């Protein structure tokens, strides 16, 4: 494979040329230019790595701006611009930087760039979703020498290395800092005039150490990246990478079939057999996104659960039935997860027992998935005082997760079968989430992808007691609350030893799931499709990265 991949060595004359190139180049990277064209499902809203903490932005960022720490497709934390890091005490982290790294403009990467980056993140104007939360806990950032960075935090932060995988490093010089930068909480010195987010469309300002450098950016049309010739790691496989946003699924698949794209993300599940039949390669990988149904368990004074009716004749009349653990267990047992995965998801999903799939940190191997048992479900309902069931409305978005509304329809039918008459309330994501966040549903379907790839993120967001003050349990809009789960999780988040932390998280997860705090349905499996001759390594974080595209024979 030496000639361009688009024109493989098919004809005789080409084969001769190919053979010649193979002999003279003597390596996997031949003389001929090799381009990669990617069709993306969503476009990054800016090239600025610190503008918008959003999947497409973070994926694009990794090509151009590397972090000190990175994650591989399985979300294992790996060294990137930092060679090693140690927790000196509960409040101090020391990062040793990789020597001899240069930015794509040729200037060397040093500790000053790290300090500049941490200083610049809170200064981004009008960020719709800021990265400042990652640097806010920093009390001080110092550089004892040009290749060492020491970060002090007020609170113990065992997950700091994982957290900073989200932060891409800028070049202080290309961003206009005149000299050394000193970190100070509330305002650094020596920053010069930091570039605005829109300035990053300019390749002279968008300078990072990544395997690719920005060549051209036309919003809505394409981002073109060129190989960074000074990259410190293994040479990137492609000379240029062109990413085009093709938001609708049908046209995206058509672009692949018509030969306009070499790789597309997220083809529709129902198209996968067709894509494979046409001679393309499909790669599927388990994601960190769980699809679940949250159940309203709030018991505050004056609160009436909004979308449950028909409980007037029950044993304790007009009480929220979901407060009874047996009812929640019944609703979970009523769902045939195998049928949902096979029929609704076309086999492209995996039934879930806890909030993250094994082997991510804090998960248990073979965590039991609640088995389908409609009879037991009916018995449980009767025991709880609802032999005739009740009526409930299930809220769901209809354009956010893979087949979200269809999953909710299937669940509604299964619940109705055990006597819980279920109606659906499906809405577009932009209105659904506002209603969800104002507690308008007694039961709602949603998804959660743990960005950090470990259990504390999932527990913290979905199951810790809802507390707007501390921000804990913020997506726990069913308002499940178990103080022991809170205690274990918070302890885990303060534990530096990884094994100990994972053990605490496993205990917290098992304890919570035994309560049926929400109904886990399945983990999404993310598909990618490529032309023959390319292979994509599926990523748990669902990012599409040119670095994970391998050229195969």
């Amino acid at each position, binding site marked *: 494979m030496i000639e361009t991949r688009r024109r493989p060595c098919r004809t005789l004359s080409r084969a001769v040329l190919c053979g010649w190139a193979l002999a003279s180049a003597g390596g996997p990277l031949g003389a001929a230019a090799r381009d990669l064209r990617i069709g993306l499902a969503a476009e990054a*809203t*800016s090239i600025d790595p610190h*503008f*918008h*903490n*959003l999947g497409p932005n973070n994926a694009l960022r990794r090509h151009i701006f590397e972090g000190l720490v990175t994650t591989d497709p399985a979300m294992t934390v790996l060294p990137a611009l930092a060679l090693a890091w140690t927790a000196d005490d509960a409040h101090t982290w020391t990062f040793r930087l990789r020597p001899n790294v240069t930015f794509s403009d040729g200037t060397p990467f040093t500790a000053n760039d790290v300090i500049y980056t941490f200083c610049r993140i809170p200064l981004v*104007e*009008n*960020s*719709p*979703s*800021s990265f*400042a*939360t990652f640097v806010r806990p920093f009390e001080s950032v110092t550089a004892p020498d040009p290749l060492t960075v020491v970060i002090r935090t007020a609170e113990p932060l065992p997950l700091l290395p994982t957290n900073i995988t989200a932060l891409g490093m800028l070049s202080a010089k290309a961003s206009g800092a005149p000299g050394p930068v000193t970190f100070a909480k509330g305002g650094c010195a020596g920053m010069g005039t930091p570039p*605005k*987010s*829109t300035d990053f469309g300019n390749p002279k300002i968008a300078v990072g150490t990544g395997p690719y450098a920005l060549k051209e950016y*036309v*919003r*809505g*049309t*394409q981002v073109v990246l060129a190989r960074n010739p000074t990259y410190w790691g293994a040479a990137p496989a492609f000379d240029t990478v062109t990413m*085009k*946003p*093709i*938001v*609708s699924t*049908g*046209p*995206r698949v*058509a*672009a692949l*079939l*018509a*030969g*306009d794209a070499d790789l597309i993300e997220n083809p529709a599940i129902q198209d996968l057999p067709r894509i494979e039949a046409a001679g393309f390669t499909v790669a599927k990988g388990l994601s960190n996104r769980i699809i679940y149904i949250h159940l309203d368990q709030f018991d505050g004074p004056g609160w009436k659960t909004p979308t449950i009716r028909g409980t007037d004749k029950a044993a304790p009349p007009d009480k929220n039935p979901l407060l009874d653990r047996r009812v929640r267990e019944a609703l979970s047992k009523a769902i045939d997860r195998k049928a949902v995965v096979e029929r609704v998801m076309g086999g492209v999903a995996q039934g879930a027992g806890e909030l993250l799939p094994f082997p991510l940190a804090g998960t248990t191997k073979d965590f039991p998935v609640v088995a389908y048992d409609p009879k037991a479900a009916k018995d449980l309902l009767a025991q709880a005082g609802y032999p005739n069931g009740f009526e409930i409305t299930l809220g769901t978005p209809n*354009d956010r997760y893979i087949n979200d509304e269809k999953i909710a329809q299937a669940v509604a039918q299964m619940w109705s079968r055990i006597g819980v008459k279920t109606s659906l309330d499906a809405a*577009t*994501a*932009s*209105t659904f*989430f*506002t*209603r969800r*966040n104002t507690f308008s549903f007694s039961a709602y379907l949603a998804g*959660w*992808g743990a*960005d950090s790839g470990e259990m504390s*993120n999932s527990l*913290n*967001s979905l199951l810790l007691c809802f507390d*707007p*003050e501390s*921000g804990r349990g*913020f*997506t726990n809009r069913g308002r499940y609350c178990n103080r022991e789960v809170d205690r274990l999780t918070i302890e885990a988040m303060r534990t530096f030893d990884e094994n100990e932390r994972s053990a605490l998280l496993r205990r917290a997860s098992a304890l919570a799931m035994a309560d049926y705090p929400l109904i886990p349905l399945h983990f999404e499996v993310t598909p990618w499709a490529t032309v023959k001759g390319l292979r994509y390594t599926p990523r748990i974080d669902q990012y599409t990265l040119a670095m994970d595209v391998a050229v195969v024979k």
Partner: protein
Amino acid sequence: MLTYLIQRFGQALVTVAAMATLVFVGVYAIADPIDMLAAPDATPDERAAIGAQLGLDRSLPVQFGTFAWRALHGDLGRSFVYNEPALSVILQRLPATLELALTALVLAVAVGLPLGLWAGLKPSSGSGRTIMTGSILAFSLPNFWQGLMLVLVFAVTLGWFPAGGRGETVNVLGIETGLLTLDGLRHLVLPAVNLALFKLAVVIRLARAGTREAMLQDYVRFARAKGLSPARIVGVHVLKNILLPVVTVIGLELGSMIAFAVVTETVFAWPGIGKLLIDSINRLDRPVIVAYLMLTVCLFVAINLIVDLIYAALDPRVRLSEAA
């Protein structure tokens, strides 16, 4: 003439103001943009900070008042998603849509008018019937389906044209255009045909009906009796008379092609303003939605005005006055 223009301008202002109010309040009522913008695991503090930055923490009247005051000074606000002036976000995308709509318009008229004339002159001939049947197909099949079929046949199966996107562009007087590059033209063919098909059918039918009617008129008989050549009768006398309805319809359709080419732009991943509108609605990017619709209103008012002016040029009986 001047009074007429002033009156039209006044009408436009009222429409724009009403539109802005409706859209602003409407989008405000749909949902909270912070829910779409903030990271799902953002803490309440972070969400409050975003709200304060974007001015979403203030009451609706205050937000609207600020918006109206700024709009009067030509500032339609900054996009929540891109942190750029909403108007410039739209204007960056406008050339792509204009290129597509104008090409489609030229196609529709250049192909539709002769075909319609022919079908009108020879209504019972085989070719005339074929043209009419084709036109029925073109405007009764749904636009998105036509688009998908075009992609399937000409991009996926035959591989003649790319399946979507805008090709290479060059900068001419500050405007990015794909009309001057081969790659750009190749990308333009399928979406332009898709957008033109419906209008083409309409033009054919209008031209045919007009031609059939005109051929029976006294002036045509008179011209024939005078011994004028058939080419001159059709090319000058008939054509000029059937153009009036065609111009009206084309004028209105041009507006809708520019403002609502959403379907074609979606099917062909064409980076125009229609797609921007859909994306902005999904993300609740209110400044862009409001600016877009205000721009659309202005566009329609302008096109209607131009149509009226062309009327006057084509038909000497039409006078532009306050009473019009």
